[in-house]
Structures are given as structure tokens and as C-alpha cells.
């Protein structure tokens, strides 16, 4: 199968420290990949590099076969490469409905319209209601973001990404800060994604990782030390040492 998303020999260092050190990976449509690794391994930096929020020192990023290394962040989103943020980036005075509507309108090339209001666009409202309902935000949809709980803001962050109908979706710790009782909603939303969408999820919750991913990539100190099936990951001694070990020590079953 041909790759929808491909990274070749990506490198970036900050002040002599190689935070992303020769990272290469490829994903096919429909892939469900978990990117794991200890704190400071360079996972968020990797996402920033491939989405164009940071410039790599060298290496190449491709989407659908097209080299997008020189394309800016906006162009990458328009080509279907969408991310969510580890630390929620939302508009405090806007409502969840407005966030999702804005993403939908932008996706359809209608966000520049000077007249009309999304509340009066039935097809937009239907999609907004659908996504918001799926993530359990229906009761909050017309309240301002600053008034809703952080866990719900995390869910909205995912709804915004999904509203853009990506081809490749990069989720940076989507469940961090979401109460245990609500992680089910994230899982359900992920399970409902179109089957041909490629998803890469950074996540610390190993239970979530094992249920979601058919492939696990382990990043440690900026280098990929493992790329394979979840069950093999738990057996790999290097992975145990770098990452899972610390979980096992913390009393988390690995």
C-alpha cells in the first residue's frame, strides 16, 4: 500500500541537543499508530516539525506523495494534515458550536464570507450538532469555552480537528487532562473515524494505546527505538528500559 504520510530523516536540534534525530516513518491510509515515549523524548517537537510549526534542520515530509517540506503550516492543513494540541488552544470567548462551525466553514472554503451566520446554515448546524453530540458536549455547545471544564475543552480540541475532515490526523495526548469517565468518549470518537483516515496518536495512557493502536512507535531521546506491534513492544527490552519499565515500576501493568 502506498504511504499517505511519510517522514524521511527528519532532524532538528535546539542549542546542540538533537531533539529529533533522524526520524523516518511512513503511514498508509487507515493506519492507527500510537507514538509513545517518556516525557521530553521529542514527541511534540516531531508533531511541530511535520505540521510546519517548526522548521526542520534537514529531512523531508510528504503527504499523498507530495513533498511538503517547504509548504507552510496553512498549506499542510489544506492538504489534509491536521493536528490537535497537547495544551488546549481554544478561543476563550467563543462557544464550542462556534469553534466547530468555524472549522467546518474553513474546510469548505466559506470562512471568509462577510454575511450570513452559521446558526442560520442548517447543513453546518447539523454537522456541528453531530460532532458535538459525539463528544458529549451538547449541553455546553452554546456556552463560552472559558466557562466549561478543562476535560470538556480537551474533547472540543478533538472535535475541531475532526471537523476539518483530515486525511492524516496527529493527536498530541488527546486524553491528557480528560477525566477517566470521559476517555470513553474519545475512544468512541476515534472508533467512529472514517476507515481510510491515517491517525497517529501520542498518548501516555497505555490502556488506551493498546486498545487503539495496531502499531506502536517508541521514541526515546529523539530517536525511534521501536516500530512494531503493541504486543512486541511490551517484550522489547529497549522499550522496557526506556519507557514501559517506568510504567511497570509505577505499578501500571505493562
Amino acid at each position, binding site marked *: 500500500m502506498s504511504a499517505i504520510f511519510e517522514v524521511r530523516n527528519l532532524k532538528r536540534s535546539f542549542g546542540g541537543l538533537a531533539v529529533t534525530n533522524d526520524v523516518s516513518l511512513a503511514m498508509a491510509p487507515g493506519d492507527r499508530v500510537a507514538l509513545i515515549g517518556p516525557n521530553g523524548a521529542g514527541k511534540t517537537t516531531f508533531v511541530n516539525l511535520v505540521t510546519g510549526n517548526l522548521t526542520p534542520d534537514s529531512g523531508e515530509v510528504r503527504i499523498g506523495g507530495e513533498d511538503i517540506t517547504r509548504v507552510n503550516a496553512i498549506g499542510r492543513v489544506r492538504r489534509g494534515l491536521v493536528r490537535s494540541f497537547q495544551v488546549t*488552544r481554544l478561543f476563550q470567548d*467563543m462557544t464550542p458550536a462556534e469553534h466547530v462551525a468555524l472549522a467546518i466553514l474553513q474546510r469548505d472554503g466559506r*470562512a*471568509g464570507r462577510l454575511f*450570513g451566520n452559521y446558526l442560520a446554515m442548517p447543513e453546518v448546524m447539523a454537522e456541528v*450538532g453531530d460532532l458535538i453530540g459525539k463528544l458529549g458536549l*451538547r449541553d455546553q455547545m452554546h456556552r463560552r469555552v472559558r466557562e466549561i471544564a478543562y476535560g470538556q475543552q480537551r474533547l472540543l480540541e478533538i472535535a475541531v480537528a475532526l471537523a476539518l475532515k483530515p486525511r492524516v490526523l496527529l493527536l498530541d495526548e488527546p486524553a491528557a487532562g480528560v477525566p477517566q469517565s470521559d476517555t470513553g468518549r474519545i475512544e468512541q470518537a476515534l472508533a467512529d473515524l472514517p476507515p481510510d483516515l491515517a491517525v497517529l496518536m501520542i498518548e501516555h495512557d497505555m490502556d488506551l494505546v493498546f486498545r487503539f493502536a495496531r502499531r506502536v512507535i517508541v521514541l526515546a531521546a529523539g530517536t525511534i527505538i521501536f516500530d512494531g506491534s503493541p504486543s512486541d513492544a511490551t517484550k522489547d527490552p529497549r522499550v522496557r528500559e526506556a519507557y514501559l519499565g517506568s510504567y511497570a515500576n509505577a505499578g501500571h501493568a505493562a
Partner: protein
Amino acid sequence: MTMATMNDALAAARGNRRKLGRDLAGLFVILALAVVGYLLFPNNLALLTRMTAIALLVLSLDLVTGYCGVATLGHAALFGTGAYTAGIAAVHFGITDPLLMLACGILGGVVAGLLCGAVILRAHGLPQLVLSIALIHLFHEFANKASSWTGGSDGLAGIAPDPLLGLFAFDLWGRTAYVFGIVLLAVVFALLRLVVRSPFGMLCRGIKEDPIRIRAMGASPKVTLIKMYMISGAVAGAGGALNAISTQVVGLDSLSFTLSAESLVMLVLGGTGSLFGALTGTIVFMFFEDIVSAANPFHWLTMVGALLIAVVLFAPKGLYGTIAAVAARWQEARR
């Protein structure tokens, strides 16, 4: 599911109707104030018309500063360019129909907006402010030097607009100009209410808060802001044209740093990020200026300064913003 969708639709319709109500109330307030002004100050319509023109400038400034977070102390460049374009069209090209002059002013404002936007939006924060100050001085100096077109420091005189629609001559008492100005302001206000609530308006509010988030949604803050600058230029240009038509001269003061700074003061006084705030600030500031400067010509600026300090310290959302916030809290408490 169908129940939920129906409830949403109902809630949405209710929200829309409430906003429409606010729009109509806004228009009603403008027209009511206009009538009151006319009855109270029949001999001072010129001041009221100037107030209307400046209100357009302050609304225009609110679009880029209040809604998009752009820092500028050079916004009179858009207003003055509109005024000079309308004036030059009349004096040098014989375009004396007031509506055509208005169109020229709007066009001039749009071009100035494009130009200023392209320069100012290259920077952020303090450098942005400095760029805007440099720009207004350049515009001022350019108008001063091009005196064969602009009349230089003597001003551009000899603007003689035709009767409005061929029916209403611009009279000595300024009645036609006053009505023309009020209708113009009401139309602009109604259009802007639509724009700030449109998808484009949402995009602008988003950019003000987090441009990186907007980029991650695939929208370009640069393109959006330039577009807003052009809309802002159209509004300020309309104000400039109104000033040229009603006073029949255009002076360098319409293209000055002072006017730019004063319009920012008016906006902050009334409250940024709200069209009502822009109107409130203009009315309060200009009346205050008129009354206080007549009562005490030496210390009126001191008093304006004191008023501004009081507002910034005790009502940081501006006069309208603070009143609106109090009213909202009151309503919340009663529910």
C-alpha cells in the same frame, strides 16, 4: 436525535432573533439620538455632522483594533485619504455628485487600508505601533508636499457638491449634510453588525486570540487581516468623504497623528470590540471636548486626560463595555 436537532434549531432561531432585536435597537438608538441632536442643537448641526464622520473613523478603527487586536496610532491615514480622494475628485475632476464623491472616498479608503495593512501587519506589538506612527507621518507629509493637488497646508478648498440625488442642496445650516451623514452611519452600522457576526467575523475574533490556532485550522491570518483592513478603509473613507462633502474643505488635520490618537482615545473610552462602544466613545468624547473647551479653553485637554484615566482605571472595558457587563450580570442574577 430528531428531538435534539429540533431543540438546537429552536435555540439557534431564538439566538438569531435576539441578535436581530439588538440590531434593530441599535439602529433605533442611532436615529433617536439623531432626532434629539437635531432638536437640541439646531444651530450646531455642523458639529453633529463632524461627530458622525468621526464616528465612522472610530468604528473603522474598532474593526482592526477591537476585533482583530492590531495596534495602530495611524488610523487617520484611511480617513484622510478618503477625504482627499473625495475632495480631489470634486475639485480636479469635476465629480461633484455627492454619492459619487462618497464612492471615491470609499475607494480611496480601501486603497489606503490595503497599503497601511500591508505595512503594519508585518510587525506585532510595539514595532507595529511604531510602523503605524511612521505611516501617518508619511501620509501627512505626502499630502503637504503634493500641494498642487491637495492645497498643502492651506487645505483643499472649493469643493462644491451638487444637490443630493439632484433634489436636496447642501444648505448653509447643514441640514442636508446632517441627514446624509446619519443615513450613512446607520447603513454602515447595519452592514458592520452583519460582518462582525459572519464567518469572517468569527475568523477575526479567533485571530485576535490565537493566530497559531487559526493557522492550524488552515486559515490565513494575514489574508484575513488585510481583508479586514480594506473593509476598515472603506468605512473610514466614507467618514472622510462625509467630512469633505459637509465642510467643503479638506485640511491636513484629517491626515494627522493627532486625529489618529484621538480616535484611539475615543475607542478606548467607549470600549473596544463593540460597535456600540465605538459610537458611545465618539459621542462622549466630542461632546466633552465641545462643552469643556468652551467653558475652559486652557484646561480642556487636562480634563479629557483625567476622564480617560478614570475610565481606564475604573472601567477598563470602556463606558459602554462596563455598562453592558453590569447589565448582563444583572440579567443573569434575575434569571
